[in-house]
């Protein structure tokens, strides 16, 4: 493809590609995101290709990278690998390479559905054929994710064909930088990386400062355990992020941008690099973009994977080649950021929202969501929930709707206990808050946060003290160690929680924790330390009785804290089947066939195997 030298040429290319794209009615979309790949999506893809070739069908096989979200199942990671047949959007789940023959012969040639690959409605047990009818998708509002199932992420033509780079054309031909900023302000878009700073104001501030050079940064360092929406966007639709950045660069007057991606995201790195290359070839990046007096270039900066490097000031130092240690932000990055120059740093999802806002207008965007939280937000719904995957919903949707209507409720017959929002330093919210709207302010008020959009659902087999200890331990290890409250405070918080889970904690420990945690939250230098006590503070607030049980009764109701629990066999239920006796790795179970078994506590290593293997629920935790 040759360079596009002006806006008319881009519009012309769009028309040609759109027509060509619309003509391709039938195609098979294989979700090949990281999660689906792990489940064998590439083998499925190869098998389908081979099968189609052997029949000589004229069907274009598209690979939908990383967008496990949209195509009927893309985003429905728990059901991968997902295959969708267009234009009917027949949704096949958990497809194996051996299913390729059936899919081609039945669906593509005879227009019949392969029943065994269909998704079953868990409530009615009925087969669902079309992706849009699946409850998981039906209740979402997919502004960002809906493109993913339509395009091959590394093909810039696909993106242009579905209207990509039209927002850039509009911005460059019809809008002044200030108008773009006004549009962003009107949209009410707030940063999707966690802090929720209004994007338009950030841009305006950076534009205001005079400097020989300004920078844009896309933060793709997403380090939250269990969260992967940024990865999915960058893998599945990198051009939407690039387009957002180019528009931002024009508005702010920045000639240089960086995408900071962690090294653990190889596919995101690869797709982003290809996207940049292709955009350069077309002249959408580089000098005199679309014939205008405007130049912008993007470089990829690879992060080593430290959690703290996702903190904006630490990230900037990391790009500079220095250790990722946060610094005070009394002078904003929009005045002195990367290389001490005015810098706008936004998260992947924030950038991807920009083209939508420019296309449809800030006012339209602001019509979605709540008063202070506009638009949609992608959450990665994981944990003890039936439908795990990426869900995009309007701000303000109730937690209950997300977890139960979209997520399908709690898995494996467990009961809901809590949900942690916002990543490892988010708070754990109890059942009584399930009807709370999911927006920046409500979450913060409840002691949690939006964060980058992690949502970890916990069933009743989760011990809340153990959960707090787990996250404090994670954050303790990921603290850069620069400031005292975070480094020493988290160390002490972990010591206290360790004592409580081991049954040696006292009420003084709980009191001391209640004194220490708010200091860590107030006195720490950066967001990591300031938010780190959230899991402790919220579990203390909403699940206090569990702390008291651990301290007073040395009891863990969830049966998680090994040091204070023991296993027993209920004589009335045991039939003497020898199953647990044979599987016990430490020989702690004694008994004979058809005689009631017993656990010798001194020998028991509390691995829980006996309980897992017992078919009669005769083993219980005490």
């Amino acid at each position, binding site marked *: 493809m040759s360079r596009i030298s002006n806006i008319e040429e881009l519009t012309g290319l769009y028309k040609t590609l759109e027509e060509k794209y619309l003509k391709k009615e039938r195609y098979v979309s294989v979700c090949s995101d990281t999660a689906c790949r792990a489940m064998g999506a590439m083998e499925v893809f190869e098998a389908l290709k081979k099968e189609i070739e052997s029949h000589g069908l004229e069907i274009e096989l598209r690979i939908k990278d990383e967008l496990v979200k949209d195509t009927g199942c893309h985003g429905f990671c728990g059901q991968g690998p997902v295959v969708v047949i267009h234009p009917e959007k027949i949704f096949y789940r958990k497809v194996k390479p051996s299913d390729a023959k059936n899919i081609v012969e039945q669906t593509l040639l005879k227009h019949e559905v392969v029943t065994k690959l269909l998704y079953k409605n868990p409530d009615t047990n009925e087969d669902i054929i079309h992706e849009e009818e699946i409850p998981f998708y039906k209740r979402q509002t997919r502004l960002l994710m809906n493109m993913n199932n339509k395009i091959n992420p590394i093909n810039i033509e696909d993106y242009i064909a579905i209207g990509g780079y039209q927002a850039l054309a509009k911005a460059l031909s019809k809008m002044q930088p200030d108008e773009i900023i006004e549009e962003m302000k009107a949209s009410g878009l707030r940063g999707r990386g966690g802090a929720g700073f209004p994007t338009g104001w950030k841009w305006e501030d950076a534009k205001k400062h005079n400097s020989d050079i300004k920078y844009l940064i896309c933060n793709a360092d997403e380090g939250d355990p269990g969260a992967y929406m940024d990865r999915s966007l960058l893998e599945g639709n990198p051009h939407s992020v690039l387009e957002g950045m180019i528009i931002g660069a024009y508005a702010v007057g920045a000639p240089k941008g960086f995408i900071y991606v962690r090294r653990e995201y190889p596919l995101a790195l690869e797709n982003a690099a290809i996207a940049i290359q292709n955009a350069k070839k077309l002249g959408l990046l580089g000098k005199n973009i679309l014939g205008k007096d405007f130049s912008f270039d993007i470089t990829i900066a690879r992060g080593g994977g430290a959690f703290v490097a996702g903190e904006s000031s630490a990230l900037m130092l990391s790009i500079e080649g220095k250790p990722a240690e946060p610094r005070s932000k009394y002078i904003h990055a929009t005045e002195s950021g990367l290389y001490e120059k005015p810098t706008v740093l936004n998260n992947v999802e924030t950038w991807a929202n920009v083209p939508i806002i420019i296309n449809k207008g800030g006012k339209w965007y602001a019509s979605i969501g709540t008063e202070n939280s506009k638009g949609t937000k992608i959450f990665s719904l994981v944990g003890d929930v039936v439908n795990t995957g990426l869900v995009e919903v309007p701000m303000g949707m109730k937690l209950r709707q997300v977890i139960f209507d979209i997520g399908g409720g709690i898995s494996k017959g467990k009961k809901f206990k809590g949900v942690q929002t916002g990543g490892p330093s988010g708070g754990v919210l109890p059942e009584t808050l399930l009807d709370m709207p999911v927006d920046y302010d409500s979450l913060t008020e409840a002691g949690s946060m939006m964060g980058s959009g992690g949502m970890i659902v916990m069933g009743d087999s989760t011990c809340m003290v153990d959960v707090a200890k787990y996250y404090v331990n994670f954050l303790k290890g*990921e*603290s850069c*160690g620069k400031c005292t409250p975070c480094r*020493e405070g988290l160390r002490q918080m972990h010591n206290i929680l360790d004592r409580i889970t081991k049954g040696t904690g006292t009420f003084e420990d709980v009191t001391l924790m209640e004194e220490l945690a708010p200091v860590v939250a107030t006195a720490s230098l950066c967001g990591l330390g300031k938010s780190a006590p959230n899991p402790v503070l919220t579990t203390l607030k909403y699940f206090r009785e569990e702390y008291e049980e651990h301290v007073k009764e040395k009891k863990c109701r969830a049966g998680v804290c090994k040091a204070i629990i023991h296993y027993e066999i209920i004589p009335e239920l045991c039939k003497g089947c020898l199953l647990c006796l044979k599987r016990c790795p430490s020989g702690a179970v004694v008994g004979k066939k058809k005689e009631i078994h017993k656990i010798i506590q001194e020998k028991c290593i509390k691995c829980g195997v006996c309980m897992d293997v017992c078919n009669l629920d005769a083993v219980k935790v005490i």
Partner: protein
Amino acid sequence: MINFSINNRGVTGSEGKTILQVALEAGIYIPHLCNNDAVKPYAACRMCLVEVTKKGRKKLVTACDYPISNGLEVNSNTALVQKNRKMVLELLLVRSPNSTVLWDMAKKIGVEKVRFTGQDVDDCILCGLCVRTCNEVVGAHAIGFESRGPSRVVSTPFNEENPACIACGACSVVCPVDIIPMFEHDGIREMPRWHKKAQLVRCSKCKKYFATKEELKFIKEKSNLSEEEILVCPNCRKYSFRV
């Protein structure tokens, strides 16, 4: 000049100064450990937390790197400041329980005992003054931080003797908790924390040991002084080269 207030007392400072600088000049006590005018503010120890009110909004900030502005209201002793400051010091005392500087500070701000356990770490409080002095003032870059979180330590690369260290002793002088020992004996300067032993050189005039060989080489390269000049100790230099 910028006019603002600390503890309801009017103070002035030139633009670019920090709250801590102006407070110290005005004789107002704000505890601090990681700050030294010789190096850039670092805001790591968090002892200098103060409450500022700007445009009606209150927040806790570190005085050592918060830039002053007209009309800024600073309060260095609110209940919130005290609560945070005391806890931070208590946390530092776990690390460095034998430091007289820390206990003197504790007395001043009302910390009486340490309620935490965990003295299983190095007694360095990780204020970074040694590292920053070595980098910013000396320019030898001989020591640095290693690892992160509670495992963070100050060390030479691979915790071995570093040829870049000139054994100048600046780190030892600047350490607020005095845990970087430096000895001189038999013409050798020893800094055991950095596994460093350096040969001392005698002054060409008074014949007393005054600097290490590496130190003189380093200074000579940086300063363009002659061999003759460099071998005279600071004390004798006063008389030898002054006009």
